[in-house]
């Protein structure tokens, strides 16, 4: 295969700029250096001799084979399949003729190369469609020119343009001429009813590599001359390095060096295992510099704040204090959740080659652009010298937003002047995490004359305000007196986003509280939610709320109908939950059966409104994964600190959901022609609430703390 780039340099350097793509730019791209990393086994068309590039996303070969660049980092959320599907749809090629490649980091060419917040599809949607449609138009215009005909004479299907008189031209035959055209300023996008690829399940584009064990992941990346590094970091938060002794460690065969960098120690070896052995032999002395926090302190501090008013409330409608005073009855409940590690299956790692000319980074990262800048700043080098190649990631869940591991790799490489791969052991990964912060919520609700008149939510959280991000979420707008107070407490434990940040714990707390509130008011939990929504629609209180009532009603009604909520037998233990997050509406109903006096979740029914579903098989995988992730962490995962040190170092001390714990999951999507929203996160938050409510139905025990297994033990 020859790359057209080599002979046609002048054209490649010509920048194609257009305002057609969401206000952004489409620029001719240098295809050299891009790796073919997912050639389907039986590509329908032969491998081309020449490739012609059109814009940053698309090149077409002379045989009609198409390569589509997938712009965003792939952490298992399926964007490497679904984003190119969107381009292929508007380009009008057969999916079997498409090869997908991971795009390089280039934020001038691509918008938002980030994996986070369930935003890849939502924010990429228009730009991806226009990229495909622009190239389709260039090909069509070329055919029209050759045939001296009108657009109306032509139809396009599967990469072939047909004239009404029977003549045909394939994209492969047109590619050379078409690629010389200017990118059109205006393009027409397809009507959703004409979609051929979107909405039809397409297998993961990396399937073959995964099934054959090919080197797709950062940890698999190797280069000639590379050394292996491990680090030793402070074992507890609040500690710094005082001194260390490494004679024994250095004597391990294969170990090349042990040295200090910052407050850490680096071990360099010719392979991974000698470094692991040496890591255990280094004798380091740490000293306390900052406070040593523990879980008892965390819990006490959070609870103390729940009775304080915040200086600046996040939202105030009416007068909650007065309404609570005037109420006939007040329900007050407190919910608590621990810090959580991300525990990605692939531990943190990164490859770095820092030399005089350039800084080459390869590895798993959710935020390549931010990391590129931070590395440039750290090493005091121009950002243009830093390249980042994104590998497939063995999970992210938020942990790989924080490029600390990439910075460490760069720092180590710059010190030894060699290419290096830094690996975290599982223990390093769990002990030096960027945890979901512990948080607590207090809800106070006032009932007067059978109506919900007051709703006061107080949050306390370490290093951030979770609910502070969305105080206008449901049930805001439905209650005359409504207030949200948030307290942010500083901690020296590093914290950060964890799958479905803000909502991952709050959804359970709120939805379990609403269940109890409905019971207290003598209302059916589903009808209670629908009544609140009707109020938010008909007589909205205060400034606009952030959710669409009809969509929320839609998922609630559908889920209730699917499980036969109104006709459920008394011994059928169901728990209901509905939640809006990451621009997506989700309702989940959990069913619990008693097995040897223990509640077991037997089924979860889920209804999702995420607009257009791009790739149903991938979407369903995300939905189920999110539910089981939410269920698993709500049920099992506990994480404690003593003297600033995490008490779980590996999977034997940190319980994740496993196959025998998994219920049946039944997934339904609301049919929609609305633009797609996010899917990687929004099904996680409601799972805990649905399960807590179903466990209550089965056991009459309310659960106020995660993980539930611990609560159930305590409660007996």
């Amino acid at each position: 295969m020859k790359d057209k780039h080599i002979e046609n340099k002048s054209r490649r350097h010509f920048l194609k700029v257009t305002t057609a793509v969401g206000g952004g730019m489409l620029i001719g791209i240098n295809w050299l250096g891009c790796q073919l990393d997912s050639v389907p086994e039986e590509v329908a068309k032969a491998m081309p001799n020449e490739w012609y590039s059109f814009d940053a996303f698309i090149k077409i070969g002379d045989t009609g084979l198409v390569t589509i660049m997938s712009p965003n980092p792939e952490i298992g959320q399926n964007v490497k399949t679904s984003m190119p599907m969107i381009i292929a749809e508007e380009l009008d090629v057969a999916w079997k003729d498409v090869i997908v490649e991971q795009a390089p980091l280039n934020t001038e060419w691509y918008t938002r190369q980030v994996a986070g917040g369930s935003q890849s599809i939502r924010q990429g949607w228009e730009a991806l469609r226009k990229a495909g449609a622009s190239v389709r138009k260039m090909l069509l215009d070329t055919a029209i020119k050759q045939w001296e005909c009108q657009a109306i004479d032509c139809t396009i299907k599967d990469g072939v343009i047909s004239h009404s008189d029977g003549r045909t031209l394939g994209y492969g035959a047109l590619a050379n001429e078409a690629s010389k055209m200017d990118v059109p300023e205006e393009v027409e996008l397809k009507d959703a009813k004409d979609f051929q690829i979107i909405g039809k399940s397409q297998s993961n584009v990396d399937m073959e590599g995964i099934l054959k064990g090919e080197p797709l992941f950062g940890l698999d990346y190797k280069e000639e001359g590379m050394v292996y590094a491990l680090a030793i970091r402070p074992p507890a938060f609040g500690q710094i390095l005082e001194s260390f002794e490494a004679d024994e460690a250095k004597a391990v065969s294969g170990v090349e060096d042990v040295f200090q960098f910052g407050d850490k120690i680096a071990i360099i070896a010719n392979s991974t295992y000698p470094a692991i052995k040496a890591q255990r032999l280094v004798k380091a002395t740490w000293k306390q510099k900052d406070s040593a926090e523990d879980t008892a302190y965390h819990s006490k501090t959070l609870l103390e704040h729940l009775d304080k008013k915040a200086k600046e409330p996040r939202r105030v409608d009416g007068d909650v204090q007065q309404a609570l005073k005037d109420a006939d009855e007040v329900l007050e409940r407190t919910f608590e959740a621990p810090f959580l590690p991300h525990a990605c299956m692939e531990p943190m790692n990164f490859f770095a080659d820092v030399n005089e000319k350039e800084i080459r980074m390869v590895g798993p990262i959710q935020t390549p652009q931010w990391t590129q800048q931070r590395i440039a700043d750290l090493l005091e080098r121009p950002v243009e010298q830093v390249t980042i190649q994104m590998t497939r990631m063995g999970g992210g869940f938020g942990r790989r937003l924080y490029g600390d591991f990439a910075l460490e790799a760069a720092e180590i490489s710059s010190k030894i002047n060699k290419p290096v791969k830094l690996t975290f052991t599982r223990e390093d990964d769990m002990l030096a995490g960027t945890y979901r912060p512990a948080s607590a919520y207090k809800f106070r609700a006032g009932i007067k004359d059978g109506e919900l008149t007051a709703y006061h939510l107080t949050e306390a959280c370490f290093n951030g305000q979770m609910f502070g991000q969305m105080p206008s979420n449901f049930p805001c707008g439905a209650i005359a007196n409504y207030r949200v107070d948030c307290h942010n407490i500083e901690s020296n434990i590093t914290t950060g986003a964890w799958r479905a940040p803000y909502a991952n714990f709050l959804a359970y707390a709120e939805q379990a509280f609403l269940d109890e509130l409905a019971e207290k008011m003598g209302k059916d939990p589903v009808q209670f939610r629908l009544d609140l929504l009707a109020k938010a629609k008909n007589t909205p209180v205060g400034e606009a709320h952030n959710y669409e009532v009809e969509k929320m009603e839609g998922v609630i009604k559908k889920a209730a109908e699917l499980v036969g909520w109104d006709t459920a037998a008394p011994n059928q233990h169901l728990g209901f939950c509905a939640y809006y997050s990451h621009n997506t509406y989700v309702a989940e109903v959990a069913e619990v059966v008693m097995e040897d006096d223990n509640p077991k979740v037997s089924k979860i029914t889920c209804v999702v409104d995420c607009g257009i579903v791009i790739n149903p098989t991938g979407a369903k995988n995300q939905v189920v994964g999110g539910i089981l992730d939410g269920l698993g962490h709500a049920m099992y995962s506990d994480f404690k600190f003593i003297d600033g040190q995490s008490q779980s170092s590996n999977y034997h001390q940190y319980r994740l959901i496993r196959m025998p714990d998994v219920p049946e999951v039944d997934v339904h999507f609301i049919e929609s022609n609305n633009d797609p929203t996010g899917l990687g996160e929004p099904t996680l938050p409601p799972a805990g609430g649905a399960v807590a409510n179903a466990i209550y139905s089965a056991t009459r025990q309310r659960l106020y703390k995660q993980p539930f297994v611990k609560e159930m033990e305590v409660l007996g």
Partner: protein
Amino acid sequence: MPVYTLHVNGQEHQVDVDADTPMLWVLRDQLNLVGTKYGCGIAQCGACTIHMNGTAMRSCSLPISSVGDAKLTTIEGLSSDAKHPLQEAWREHDVPQCGYCQAGQLMSAASLLSNNKRPSDDEIDEAMNGNLCRCATYTRIKSAIKTASKNM
């Protein structure tokens, strides 16, 4: 350092490492068979699962000195054409999310099916309990094992 002769995926290899080196790191770093994954190093996650004389083993907890003449199989050698009934079933059910745990899942499942062609749900749960999937693809893994079991 001692020199070991290993039989991996039908090929013989000579490896010169310390006796306590786990097979996981021999495969990944010395033999360049990186399909076998590191997840925990203490036999808790199953990402490193390989076959030793046909039986699933956690290679992170298998020192090279204990391998002897045993025949080892890794994901790269599960089948010559990637058409093992499990691999076919994995395609059919579009199992992976991130994909990192999948080699270990496939190797555990292959060992299960070679001993028990028609495992019950409980037997599948039991055999796969040692394999974590952080993305939680468990329902598809289970369905794919059942499909493969039918097609074997």
